């Protein structure tokens, strides 16, 4: 079967982990890794795995996109530079999957809204915390209306690279708005804590939903279990630790995400849930490209 060729922009934790996921995809094939530091471990690993690399940023790959048949790119750099990266890739007819919290394209959480995404040249994966918590918010809001949802993500310090550290405000805004737009809550809030404990702690996420009416405990529990099963299809380490706890109109759910250990060890479930969601999203677009349903047109360049 033909595979759609992909470029990875950003050779940090997320980009490197994503490379391993793409290598296993039946419809995607990573061919380029773009970095800015020639010494970076990510670029070195990419070369070892047979990818072409450049340390000259996005401009270093643009001249090769057509010849190498690149049709999908993943941006795992920073919200501050994403728009420029995306514009350049789109101009070459390359579809962009955004793993920064820039959120210039529609927001995607695969088990919630992958099938409903509009035709677009840029889709945003929100944040690791968004991918880990929004299925739960949606699992409650599809049963009964949620006035307010709050999510708390605890991440191991070793799994958080410089890009994420420089984007905490963007993380907060993008995840909060996605809790509403995709999760279905009327109001949302996202909190992020970076914990340096040794050995590193596995990614934890707590989700609180305030329902308008008294929560229907049985239906909510069933709905949540079904959503958790859907996420487990692409992130096997997605696990309910405690809850749901019902207290008045508050529903509390305590989750853990263990990763596959592709790049960083299994504690970094935050990498996996983001990269696995991005991979799944790109696979859907790849299938549409392969079937001829989606045509990517380059501007005259």
């Amino acid at each position, binding site marked *: 079967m033909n595979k759609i060729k992909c470029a990875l922009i950003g050779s940090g934790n997320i980009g490197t982990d994503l490379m391993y996921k793409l290598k296993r995809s039946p419809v995607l094939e990573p061919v380029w890794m773009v970095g800015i530091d020639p010494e970076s471990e990510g670029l070195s690993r990419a070369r070892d795995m047979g990818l072409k690399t450049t340390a000259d940023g996005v401009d270093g790959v643009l001249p090769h996109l057509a010849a190498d048949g690149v049709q999908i790119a993943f941006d795992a750099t920073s919200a501050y530079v994403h728009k420029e990266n995306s514009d350049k890739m789109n101009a070459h007819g390359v579809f962009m999957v955004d793993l920064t919290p820039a959120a210039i394209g529609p927001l995607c959480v695969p088990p919630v809204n992958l099938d409903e995404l509009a035709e677009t040249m840029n889709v945003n994966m929100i944040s690791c915390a968004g991918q880990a918590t929004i299925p739960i918010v949606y699992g409650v809001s599809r049963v009964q209306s949620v006035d307010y949802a*709050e999510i708390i993500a605890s991440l191991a310090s070793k799994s958080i690279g410089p890009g994420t550290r420089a984007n905490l405000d963007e*993380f907060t805004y993008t995840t909060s708005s996605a809790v509403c737009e995709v999760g279905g809550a009327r109001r949302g809030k996202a*909190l992020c804590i970076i914990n340096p404990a040794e050995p590193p702690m596995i990614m934890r996420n707590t989700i609180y939903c305030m329902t308008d009416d008294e929560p229907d405990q049985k239906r909510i529990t069933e709905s949540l279990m079904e959503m958790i099963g859907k996420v487990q299809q692409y992130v096997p380490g997605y696990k309910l630790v405690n*809850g749901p*706890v019902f207290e008045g109109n508050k529903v509390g759910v*305590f989750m853990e995400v263990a990763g596959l250990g592709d790049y960083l060890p299994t504690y970094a479930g935050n990498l996996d849930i983001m990269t696995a969601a991005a991979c799944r999203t790109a696979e859907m677009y790849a299938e549409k490209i392969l079937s001829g349903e989606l045509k990517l047109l380059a501007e005259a360049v």
Partner: protein
Amino acid sequence: MNKSDLAGRKVLCHDMCLRDGMHAKREQISTEQMASFAAAMEKANVPMIQVSHGAGLGGNSLQHGFAPHANEEYWDAVAPVLDKTIMSVLLIPGLGTMNELRSAHAHGVRSVHVATHSTEADTSPQHIACGRELGMDTSGFLMMAHLNTPQGLAAEAKKMESYGAQTVYVTDSAGYMLPEDVTEYVTVLRDTLEDDTEIGFHGHNNLGMGIANSIAAVRAGASRIDCSVAGLGAGAGNTPLEAFVAVCDRMGIETGCDMFGLMDMAEELVFPMMDHIVRIDRSSLTLGYAGVYSTFLLHANRLGAKYGIEPRDILLELGRKKMIGGQEDMIEDTALTMLKERESQSAA
């Protein structure tokens, strides 16, 4: 009076009762109380007071509790009663944002503690730079300092200084440090940072060391000390301001604060509004003993009662799991897991 080797040293006292004190009141302080406290502190020449939700900017949440008012309403209530006294705020990146800091500035706040865990200073460069761009007195605030080594903390402090922090704090969030620890941490920071960067110390009294630790910090080169009138703050409270001022006065350290005015305020305004007497009890002592974030106290007490588990056991487990500030959700999670383990043990 016994003067000391520190006679003539100047220390800036920064009061926390309208921020850290919010924790001790489950975030329930009214705008009227805020204004009356602030007026009393202005009258007593307290140079800086922190005013906000206990968790600072963005704090209103299920995780940290909802205050009856937005931070903006508190600042608007306090600003009109202040003249010389400067109003400050706490900003923890990941919870609060730069937009909220800009709002604080627009409502009269002129100083900010930008706080990170003691090993994570590199989550703060944008926020520290934002404080400086707004012209605010900007401090880096390294929380749970005891979870880093003195050399490691100094490296994080150096980063904050490079981002633009004018003061860097050794923050003993768990009230775990002993005076000799404080001496070592502050000494290494003093040796590492530029001469014109100030060092601050923020203590909690969980082991009864609030004042002794603050004096040790001053002796090692700190020039800013966070205190709280009547100690109103998380855990067993902060260093009590009126007592710290009294000790400084005995030692010849200059704070500029009116000790008798602060004593009266503690007695007449603060103690009467406490929901529980902020003191060293078995739970708060456990925080200091085990090195657990002081704000966990009331959550652990409440959840311990809900699930029938001794709060001290929950706190010890949180310490063992190395939970840090901001992970209040993990208190209920830990209690639930302990409950499951106990049930399976008794079933076996």
